[in-house]
């Protein structure tokens, strides 16, 4: 009797897979649970000309790809470093005219993803949600239509499909059945809205472990193309229940990009080919200390 096929691949192989796609989506929130190891692997493997569909709030995950010059088009809801300030890579790229921004927001990005996940061409929202703001003027994808049942005006938010969705899980088995701890559950729709899904995980668990903890399985693996074992794979963002965000590291990134020294950051932290080499750069003592803030 044949055993189920494993989907586990190396980080480098996953980076090659991601770099072959053009429209990339990701989940996580702010500085929590971003698929940073996968992002670094994609940059190393020459990802270029990307369109990024981020979660409704993002920070270094998208900003690093922008600062590294991989991104042409960005679906914006919110990008920022909270107390540190504005996202430096994003801001420089927009202000110098290098990045095309789709002026979205929380409902635009979230419902566009939901529409794609559902196979719906768009989602209509009452006109009163957007009238009174400049968003319809700045975002031509918000089209005014009429509700065929009542005649009322509404705006159609189009489906936002991705080629490849990249996610970081706390636990995942070799078939791609994944658990995301914490956060606000954008992962399932992001995965459903993409043609293929690639997951990095703190821990690869047995299928029996998945069955035992099925109530915590966020995403069944049938659509997952690859699983990568990447301990600390969300670093420098937080991995809920495993480690907290590395605020000093975020500041190192922030300062480097703001001062135009992106290359030195990339050389030091993105160039290492394996997750182990990256973690050596960060330092194990630092990493272990972050566990106290999980």
């Amino acid at each position: 009797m044949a055993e189920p096929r494993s989907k586990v691949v190396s980080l480098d192989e996953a980076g090659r897979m991601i770099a072959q796609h053009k429209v990339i989506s990701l989940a996580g929130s702010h500085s929590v649970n971003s698929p940073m190891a996968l992002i670094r692997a994609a940059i190393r493997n020459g990802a270029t000309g990307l369109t990024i569909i981020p979660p409704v709030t993002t920070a270094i995950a998208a900003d690093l790809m922008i600062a590294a010059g991989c991104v042409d088009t960005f679906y914006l809801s919110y990008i920022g470093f909270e107390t540190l300030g504005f996202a430096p890579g994003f801001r420089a790229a927009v202000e110098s005219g290098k990045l095309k921004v789709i002026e979205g927001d929380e409902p635009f990005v979230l419902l566009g993803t939901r529409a794609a996940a559902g196979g719906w061409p768009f989602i209509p929202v009452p006109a009163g949600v957007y009238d009174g703001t400049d968003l319809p003027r700045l975002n031509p994808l918000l089209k005014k239509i009429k509700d065929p049942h009542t005649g009322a005006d509404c705006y159609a938010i189009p489906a936002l499909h991705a080629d490849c969705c990249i996610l970081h899980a706390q636990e995942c088995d070799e078939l791609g059945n994944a658990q995301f701890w914490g956060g606000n559950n954008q992962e399932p729709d992001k995965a459903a809205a993409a043609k293929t899904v690639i997951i990095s995980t703190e821990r690869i668990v047995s299928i029996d472990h998945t069955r035992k903890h099925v109530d915590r399985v966020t995403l069944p693996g049938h659509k997952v193309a690859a699983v990568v074992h990447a301990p600390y794979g969300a670093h420098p963002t937080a991995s809920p229940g495993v480690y907290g965000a590395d605020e000093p590291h975020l500041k190192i990134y922030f300062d480097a990009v703001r001062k135009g020294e992106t290359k030195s950051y990339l050389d030091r932290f993105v160039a290492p080919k394996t997750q182990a080499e990256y973690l050596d750069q960060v330092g194990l003592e630092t990493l272990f200390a972050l566990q106290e803030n999980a």
Partner: protein
Amino acid sequence: MAEAAKSASNDYSIPELMTVAMARVLGEREDGKLGGVGAAAVVPMAAARLAALTTAPNLWWFCGGASGLNPTFDRLPKSSADPRAALGSTGKKNMLDVVDMGITGGWDWGFNGGLQIDMYGNINMIGIGTYPQLKVRGPGTVGTIWTGTLRRPYLYTMHHASRVLVEKCDYISGPGYISGGTSRWDKVQNTTDGPQLLFSPMAILDFDPDSKRMRLKSVHPGYSADDVQKNTGFELVMPASVPMTAAPTAEELFVLRRHVDRDGVLKNVRATIG
């Protein structure tokens, strides 16, 4: 130019004062009601937690980012997206629930800030300058649009300055009273009330009932009405007399520091003037 907001007393910091002021309002107006704070919102997050412990025992509050309802942390995280902000919650809301409630008008109250806030309480998170190659590219509008659909939006800023409090936003991403008077209700859902108050490091402001222009309501200890006007980019409606914002009581500070913010995060939150 910008300098740190200075407390008139060594007993409390300006962010602590703002937290207590917000918590009192939640107690007076929102007990039993459902609302939320966004991410990058450490002061409103502390205020909601404090209110639930003191003035508003029936408050339902959502801690955006970490997504917990009614969390019971006692070590205030610096970000509401920090997973520890969900500690001891009674439930959670997925991001889709949050958007659903935004569109249906399910939120009673909420706090919002902005890169710019104008004299009619409109918010701009888009940017400053000519689109698309903006002079200052804002972080994006995220959920500021909900100031149009939630019943009683509260505004806040940690930076009381003429560049933040502007006569007219370069772009509107969160609708306040639009161009004043009744103009809001030509555009947005008419079951909602528009911005209630603005909390800043210098003052609490409200809106004139008819013109809907921003009005000074109380000034924090250590600042004068004139100080507030000087650091505001438009002419405020000035009542005949402007009271002082009541300082936090010893009991409020006790609960805040023992049961909300044991690590003293609010002592180091950046609040600036000018």
